[in-house]
């Protein structure tokens, strides 16, 4: 129970629930309202000529959902799937036309649901986190250290992805 709700209940007035997970050795978190489900890592169909972090597509109960390798997106090696590797399915609107898109994120392990109080969130330091600063919405502090809260819209920036995929196709 403690892992799920590490902060005492009475201090939770404005806190926001986040899902925390691991990519390589660091802890990251996403607002839970974006998360639809967490599935076991399964068969991913590669889509050619895309940047390496676009891992491919999966069949999610009859729907084709793109899958992004977060580690590769952060600039690390592609994930080698292990026992605890998961795909976190999130849903968000990417281009402002009201069409919600489902996207899977490959993570090394899912940790817990955290209640994060905005007062405990600090700005990202300009370096030292190991990933691009603009991917970071904030750093949440707790007794065990820092959790990086991701700015998903930056991580999934369509402009970025477009440029990278055009580069990939040209090269």
């Amino acid at each position, binding site marked *: 129970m403690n892992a799920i709700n590490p902060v005492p209940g009475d201090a939770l007035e404005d806190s926001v629930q986040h899902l925390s997970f691991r990519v390589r050795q660091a802890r990251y978190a996403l607002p839970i309202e974006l998360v639809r489900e967490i599935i076991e890592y399964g068969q991913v169909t590669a889509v050619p000529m895309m940047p390496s972090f676009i891992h491919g597509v999966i069949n999610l109960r009859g729907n084709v959902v793109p899958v992004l390798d977060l580690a590769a997106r952060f600039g690390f090696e592609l994930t080698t799937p292990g026992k605890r590797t998961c795909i976190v399915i999130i849903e968000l609107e990417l281009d402002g036309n009201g069409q919600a898109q489902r996207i899977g994120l490959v993570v090394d392990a899912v940790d817990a649901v955290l209640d994060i109080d905005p007062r405990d969130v600090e700005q990202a330091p300009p370096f030292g986190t190991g990933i691009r600063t603009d991917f970071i919405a904030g750093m949440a502090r707790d007794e065990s250290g820092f959790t990086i809260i991701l700015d998903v819209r930056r991580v999934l920036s369509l402009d970025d992805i*477009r440029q990278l995929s055009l580069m990939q196709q040209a090269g």
Partner: protein
Amino acid sequence: MFNDEQWSQLLRGFIEEGRDLAKQAEEYLLVLDQEPDDEQAVHGLFRAMHTLKGSAGLFTLTPLVNFTHHLESLLSTVRDGERRLTAPLISLMLRCLDEIASMLDLIDPDSGELPVDEAHQAQLLDALAEQTGAPRAIAHEADDAAEDCARRGTLERCVGCDAAGAWHISLRFHPDLLRNGFDPASFVRYLGRLGEILHLETLAEQMPDLVEMDPESCYLGLEIALCSSASKAEIEDVFEFIRDFCTLRILPPDSALDDYLKLIQDLPETDERIGSILIASGLLTEHELAEGLALQAEVGDGLKSPLGSVLVEAGMVPPKAVNAALAKQQSARERPNRESSQIRVAANKLDELINLVGELVISAAGAQLQAQLQGSADCIESSQTVNQHVEAIREAALKLRMIEIGDTFNRFHRVVRDVSQQLGKQIRLDIQGADTELDRSVIDKLADPLTHLVRNAIDHGIESAEQRLAAGKPAEGRLSLNAFHDSGMIVIEVSDDGRGLNTARIREKAIERGLIDPQATLSEADTHMLIFAAGFSTADAVSDLSGRGVGMDVVRSAIDALRGSIEIESRPGLGCTFRIRLPLTLAIIDGFLVSLGDEHFVIPLELVTECLELDARLDSRYGYLNLRGKPLPCIDLAAHFELPSSAQGRRNILVVSLGRHQAGLIVDRLHGELQTVIKPLGLLFQHLQGISGSTILGSGQIALILDVASLLRQLQQHIDHEFRSPQPRPDLMGS
């Protein structure tokens, strides 16, 4: 009366109906443009405006009622032969219809509000008044008895009419009227808009004793004398909502009856039955006829009393009128019952059904796969039966979404008329294959590219009358739209008999724009395709219509998005044909499954012409192989997609052809035909070239669908790049 939701639903219904009516009206106008004396069209046009006005009134859309009223009054003079529709008048009326359409778009179905551009409307109405030669104010006074009377209230009587010349309306309300949420007074008020109510008598004989009286029941009857220029159907329309809750009799003014009788005698010889004749003459409304027929069936058990006498007895028409109509009916024959049985269904319900059928196709394929793995003969057999049914369902479901392309084609009458007039050219539009059916979603996306092609043909293709005469062609240019099915695809042709494409000029322009190398040798067809490049335009002057260099590339991308292709056939001096090939549907296609290593890919089956074993090797990703003595450009897909190719086993070539282009796709294994339910890949992959979508196989695995058109383009580019002068290499392939 209604709660808000019901009301806005009704209003939405009206908006839909209004759009249909405006479209109908436009079609009639365009017919009249060709045949100014087509009586049927005049009547149809009048009816459309009339119905629109009537329905708009029910929703108190006053601006729309007023605006439509002007058109209606003008049309009534046309119908009565007092005025002819001239070309400028038709142009003006078309603009008025546009205004009506835009008003319909502006109606807010939730609040029922209608914001209008009054200045624009006034401008149109002034122009209309100018055309008809009467200042607007006067036209108003003469025609608009309805508004006039309403405005003047009961202070004065209408000029030239008294109670004797008035309509007599006899109304008995059903006791349930109030319980159904209708207020009798509102209908009387609305009736006041049609003309002046000269006299109104309330009948309360039905009223029981006070003790027995149910305050929620309506016991009222009304006898109304109405002075109005409205027709009988128009008056009846006022009570449309409460038809089921009242007994309605409308008798024409005595003075007008003779006119009606004359009208009956003047009707052209038809097969119509007495009821139809009475309706056509305006004495009987369709609703009354239905009622009369029901009465007839009720009364006559063995002996059927004639409809005419039933109608007279029921007080629906005066006896004189029936006699006249009976005389008319002598050569009447039974008309076949052509009642159309169509159902309107919301498009999203159909889409949902088709999605579900898509899922069914996938799971049925999965079941069949499992059955084969199990190896039980019974299981395989029953899964095959299921699959056959699923295939039949798939086809039936897709047919539901098919609509005729005629509606889209007919819109171009207007475009051709407007554009050719603007340019001072005489152009006739021919339409063929209007009944060719095509998926609704395809048709919707086809309208824009077709408009571009049609405008281009008028602007650039067809010459001015003088030039045409000088070239020995008839002064009137011909533009034709044609649609037909051809081997699982639909072909749409836009052709003109104009000057054709100027190949030299296109080449010059393309070099000038840096689109091609000055040294490049291009075939004529390839040169023509250059007009689809972005930013290409050969028109010397930028006109209002085309020549800005946008357009043709839009056409190309719209057709690509529909997984279609386009080709050009140009004969200098004789004309030019743009031929668009489209798949019949966007949702489910027949595909051909292949694999590269472990990954599966689907190629639209209609593009595959043959499969061969690859005997030779391709030195690079792209190159030529010898196919029966002809060079075949080939693409090694595994290398192209940078996928690991399975080393063992022979590889295969899939020969695909798209329009005039043919190419070989080198793959590892061929798996055969597959019903492919197309799943879009989504935004992340929108810039991906060579792959257009995905599908889910029976095994649950995902296969990507190849975009052959874009692959062929990439292949062409690489080949142009690598082989400046292509040399067939006959040594590469055996036999």
